[in-house]
């Protein structure tokens, strides 16, 4: 009798443990595939609320004014209406270029690096992150075109001979930029599309009307035969490995735009990795924000995106914040120790100049706040708290780029040219790119399945609960 009671109690305990794991881990809480498909489709095709339309109208208006009208003015009246002038000839346009390229890094980091290392928590949000790469790079491209002034002549950067048989000068880091950003934009868009094909096929099977035709065209005839999956799996593996060095190269090359110049504050050998860790810092922060917003605003997303995912992203954000602090200090101390008069002057200007508050705020939101909050599992699992940290990190990282670009340009070896950069039309253009980035997400939420259902199901097939002695643990089989 005692034995029977003990076994009953053990069984109840096991059930309780299993339920606890199911609530916590998406991979241990499988639903029928059809139900998961319906949830994703309902989130995407549900009738938009007035809040949705209000968001579209507000963002659309900012885009029209910020990107449309302000850019028209910039083109019609010339770069003179922007704040850029000697010595700060690079202003917010370049700050935004670096910022958006940084944001774009999170997509590849989450999707490719975590795929290569088989980090299972990545599965439900790889697409949301991949979209960030493509959307972010579009904003970076816009920012470069704005900076060019005569944007319609941007094709002069493309390697082909013009009428005077002149080719772009490949000695220049700016032409490396074009190659690297183009390669990254094309690669990340293809990498976004490949794993999307099976979900587009699912959407095709589940839709009617114009959506049916839309998804039929995009699904390009995918059925899910053994051959199709094999080709897709191989291609995704090649992409996952190959896109990582491309991602690293992009921001390293962007850093060389600065580091290759023999200017105080810029001429640093550590700028490559420092820029990359900065890119990951802002990108992961942005990923946390997007994930929290998607979870909070779209139907059924609380099933797919759970506290465990924010917990995992929070850990990455904490580690990356430590890495950023290390690289920042490394860059700082070497420049400080060198004793060069103008570099010292510049460092002092950063810390105690009119924008000293920005320098201090950068350190607080990039280091102090993440360290104070993200060490705690409960706090970092809270979607809204982690998204606030994410927003603050992005503000901090934007400040960092502002200090590197126009503020550093204000101090040079010719004191008679010193002048603080004051942005003008750039502010509206910046708001325009930010609004367009968000608008892209809002529109995509109604057209693209945000959750890669097949990847989630694949993960759920691979996970199970096992007993080791008296303990119940999660085990993962390597199905790929």
């Amino acid at each position, binding site marked *: 009798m005692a034995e029977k009671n003990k076994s009953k109690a053990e069984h109840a305990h096991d059930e309780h443990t299993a339920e606890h794991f199911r609530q916590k881990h998406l991979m241990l809480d499988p639903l*029928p*595939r*059809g139900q998961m*498909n319906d949830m994703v489709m309902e989130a995407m095709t549900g009738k938009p609320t007035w809040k949705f339309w209000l968001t579209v109208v507000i963002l659309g208006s900012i885009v029209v004014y910020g990107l449309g009208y302000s850019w028209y003015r910039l083109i019609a009246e010339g770069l003179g209406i922007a704040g850029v002038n000697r010595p700060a000839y690079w202003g917010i346009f370049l700050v935004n270029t670096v910022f958006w390229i940084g944001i774009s890094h999170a997509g590849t980091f989450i999707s490719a690096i975590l795929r290569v290392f088989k980090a299972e928590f990545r599965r439900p949000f790889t697409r949301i992150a991949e979209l960030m790469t493509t959307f972010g790079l579009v904003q970076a491209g816009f920012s470069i075109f704005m900076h060019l002034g005569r944007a319609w002549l941007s094709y002069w950067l493309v*390697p082909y*001979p013009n009428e*005077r*048989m*002149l*080719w772009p*000068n*490949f*000695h*220049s880091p700016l032409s*490396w930029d074009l*190659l*690297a950003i*183009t*390669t990254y934009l*094309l*690669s990340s868009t*293809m*990498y976004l*599309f*490949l794993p999307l094909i099976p979900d587009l096929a*699912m959407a095709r*099977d*589940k839709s009617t009307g114009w959506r049916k035709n839309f998804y*039929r*065209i995009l*699904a*390009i*005839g*995918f*059925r*899910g*035969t*053994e*051959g*199709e*999956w*094999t*080709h*897709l*799996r*191989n*291609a995704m593996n*090649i*992409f996952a490995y*190959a*896109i990582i*060095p*491309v991602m690293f*190269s992009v921001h390293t*090359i962007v850093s060389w735009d600065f580091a290759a110049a023999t200017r105080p504050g810029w001429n640093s050998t550590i700028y490559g990795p420092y820029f990359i860790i900065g890119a990951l810092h802002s990108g992961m922060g942005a990923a946390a924000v997007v994930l929290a917003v998607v979870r909070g605003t779209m139907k059924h997303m609380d099933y797919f995106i759970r506290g465990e995912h924010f917990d995992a992203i929070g850990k990455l954000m904490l580690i990356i914040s430590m890495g950023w602090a290390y690289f920042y200090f490394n860059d700082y101390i070497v420049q400080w120790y060198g004793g060069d008069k103008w570099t010292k002057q510049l460092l002092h200007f950063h810390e105690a100049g009119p924008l000293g508050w920005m320098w201090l705020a950068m350190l607080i939101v990039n280091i102090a706040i993440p360290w104070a909050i993200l060490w705690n599992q409960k706090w970092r699992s809270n979607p809204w708290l982690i998204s606030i940290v994410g927003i603050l990190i992005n503000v901090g990282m934007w400040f960092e780029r502002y200090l590197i670009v126009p503020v550093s340009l204000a101090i040079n070896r010719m004191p008679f040219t010193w002048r603080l950069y004051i942005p003008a039309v750039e502010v509206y253009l910046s708001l325009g790119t930010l609004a367009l980035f968000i608008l892209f997400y809002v529109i995509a939420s109604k057209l693209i399945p945000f959750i890669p259902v*097949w990847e989630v*199901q*694949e993960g759920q097939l691979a996970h199970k609960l096992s007993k080791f002695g008296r303990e119940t643990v999660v085990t993962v089989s390597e*199905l*790929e």
Partner: protein
Amino acid sequence: MTETVNLLAVFPDLEPASDAVEQLRLLGVTDDHMNVISGVPVTEPMLGRPHAWTNVPRIAFGGAILGMCGALFLIFIVPYLYPYPIQVGPQAYVPGPPSFILLFEITMLGMLLSTFLGVWLESFFPNYRPLQYLPEISDGKFVVYFSCPEASQDKFTKTMTALGAEKVTLAEARQL
């Protein structure tokens, strides 16, 4: 000459689908005459199927070579196409480190573009013709698609049903 028919057997799970593959082989259907269609990737060993051949890695390699050739053209030929030499600081006419950047970026671009193209070529995408397919596949069903002699259709249908097939239908090409 024996007339053949194409059938689609719908299974709720992977296990009975792999059993069906095994049974079909015992009934004389060769691997070339069957395929498993699913909404989730399953490897060939799970299904007991021979390794599916793909040329995607070879196409990717070919693209990388093409990209590299393009980069070498820009590095070694283009500087001599200028009407006058462009000298940048103390750098050589064909500078080493910048050339390496060009070589890396364009080779990678060639490889990734051709990998993407490889999937399209190998899978015959885009394909908007009517195809043998059932929408249930998206909902997690495993469909075994096979050819069998028309005279034995009933026998094959019964065998598949006995193995757990929810339905066995004639494979008709339909607009996806």
